[in-house]
């Protein structure tokens, strides 16, 4: 297919709008050819994931664009960074890493982006609206924006998200269009008790399974007896975008493009159908735990970033308790949610419990955890999935209450009754 460029596209590519726009457009045009796009289209918002510092190359790229005078041309939020700029010294972050990660933050902030530093931009006042064309990075945010909000974004990789933000042009392909948003895989919840469907552990587990089964296709789930909360849908989004490449899912009767299964599939037949039984879910749940035994060094919550409502749910569980001296307790969140939680008096219980808070980043994006942390427990499928490879730890998956109870007991305690 031949790529048709507008006058504006050619002006961008020709350098009429400056050297940064030319570099961004050159990358976008080559990507349009990779995608086999016929044309480029406008987006009206962006979320940049390239903020995460993982090495010199990403920093060089950011500073190259910044030095060329890059400015974003649409409202743009920023994903987690590689360092909590105010609190990194309290952890194991090397000074050299902190300095470079901070330079990468400054490079993107200087392009005119909002310093949101969060992987849950959909829980800020910059959440996109239904049908809005956007260019988002960050796998969980992509899944949430497409599926729960009905905004339209492809899975933008780091490095490309900023090109879209600078030019507000993207290849007109994939999930920006209606056809590719159709469901492909039908998953029927069968015999999954309502009490389990209400429980916070259900969503990371279901998401983990959805990602494994759907891989890069759009899963459609039927059989919900309850309406999940926004935070449960957040946990689901993160899980299915981690074990798979899911960028869009439909929950029939719940998400906006799925009033019925037929609507979700756009009248087409599923490529694959299967029943999701309690047995299958139990197996998925077991996969999220790699550790054996009850030993525990750290409990960590907040991937994606802990929300105001999650702080609200956590506070009463902590009240009147203290963590065991041998177990650290950490919440990762955004500066916005921290401020809201503090104003509502929800941080004091965390402090009294002996818990700590890290903002702007997370345990996967900054080398904050000391090597003495060998076994961690979390309510996040994303933390559970990545920690063994990225941090070399063993991991236990449990619910919010399990995580608190384990931190108090100093060893893993889980209430498995809903899963039996």
């Amino acid at each position, binding site marked *: 297919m031949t790529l048709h460029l507008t006058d504006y596209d050619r002006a961008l590519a020709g350098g009429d709008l400056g050297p940064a726009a030319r570099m961004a457009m050159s990358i976008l045009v080559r990507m349009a050819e990779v995608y086999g796009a016929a044309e480029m289209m406008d987006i009206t918002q962006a979320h940049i994931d390239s903020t995460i510092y993982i090495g010199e190359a990403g920093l060089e790229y950011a500073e190259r664009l910044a030095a060329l005078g890059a400015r974003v041309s649409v409202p743009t939020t920023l994903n987690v960074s590689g360092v909590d700029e105010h609190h990194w010294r309290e952890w194991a972050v090397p000074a050299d890493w902190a300095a470079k990660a901070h330079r990468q933050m400054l490079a993107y902030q200087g392009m005119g982006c909002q310093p949101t530093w969060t992987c849950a931009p959909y829980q800020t006042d910059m959440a996109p609206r239904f049908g809005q064309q956007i260019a988002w990075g960050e796998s969980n945010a992509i899944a949430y924006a497409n599926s729960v909000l009905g905004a339209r974004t492809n899975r933008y990789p780091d490095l*490309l998200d900023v090109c879209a933000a600078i030019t507000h042009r993207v290849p007109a392909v994939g999930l920006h269009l209606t056809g590719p948003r159709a469901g492909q895989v039908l998953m029927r919840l069968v015999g999954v008790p309502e009490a389990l469907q209400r429980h916070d552990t259900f969503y990371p587990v279901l998401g983990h399974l959805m990602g494994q089964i759907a891989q890069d296709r759009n899963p459609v789930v039927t059989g919900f007896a309850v309406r999940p909360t926004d935070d449960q849908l957040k946990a689901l989004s993160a899980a299915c975008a981690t074990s798979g490449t899911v960028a869009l899912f439909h929950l029939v009767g719940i998400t906006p493009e799925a009033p019925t299964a037929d609507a979700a599939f756009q009248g087409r037949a599923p490529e694959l159908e299967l029943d999701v039984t309690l047995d299958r879910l139990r197996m998925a749940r077991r996969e999220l735990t790699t550790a054996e035994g009850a030993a525990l060094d750290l409990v960590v919550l907040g991937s994606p970033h802990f929300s105001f409502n999650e702080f609200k749910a956590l506070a009463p569980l902590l009240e009147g308790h203290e963590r065991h001296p041998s177990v650290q307790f950490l919440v990762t969140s955004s500066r916005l949610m921290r401020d809201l939680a503090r104003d509502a008096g929800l941080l004091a219980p965390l402090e009294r419990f002996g818990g700590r808070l890290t903002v702007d980043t997370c345990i996967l994006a900054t080398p904050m955890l000391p090597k003495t942390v060998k076994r961690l427990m979390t309510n996040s499928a994303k933390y559970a999935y990545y920690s063994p490879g990225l941090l070399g730890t063993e991991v236990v998956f449990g619910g919010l209450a399990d995580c608190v109870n384990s931190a108090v007991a100093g060893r893993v305690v889980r209430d498995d009754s809903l899963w039996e």
Partner: protein
Amino acid sequence: MTFHGRALIAGEAAGTVLASGEPISFWGGYDAATGEIIDRRHPLSGARAAGCVLAVPFTRGSSTSAQVLLEAVRTGTAPAAIVLAQVDSFVALSSIVADELYRRPIPVVVADPADFARLATGQRAEVRRDGSIRIEE
């Protein structure tokens, strides 16, 4: 044996094949300092892909994968070439930006799934600019 794929990013390379039918996430799955595959749930876990012809059907997971592969190019631990079973924007992008920054794009070929399945770990493979791949058995 030679088969033809689509040269997503044209280039020439040769190396030992490291193949799996399981998709990979470079972030959390690839150590850019050493080229080791570190996703402990992946069949290639522990293998070193630096200088190899890495054959994976596509990438999954984190958006940060593109930065990891770019960093691997910078440090010299990237695969010599990547063969996919479908178009993968993350791999293509890393290679395009590696070209932009370092003039060192990674050749990327998209093979027919049937051809992709012929690639087995340990073979020696040569990737050519036109998207053809020659395997020595």
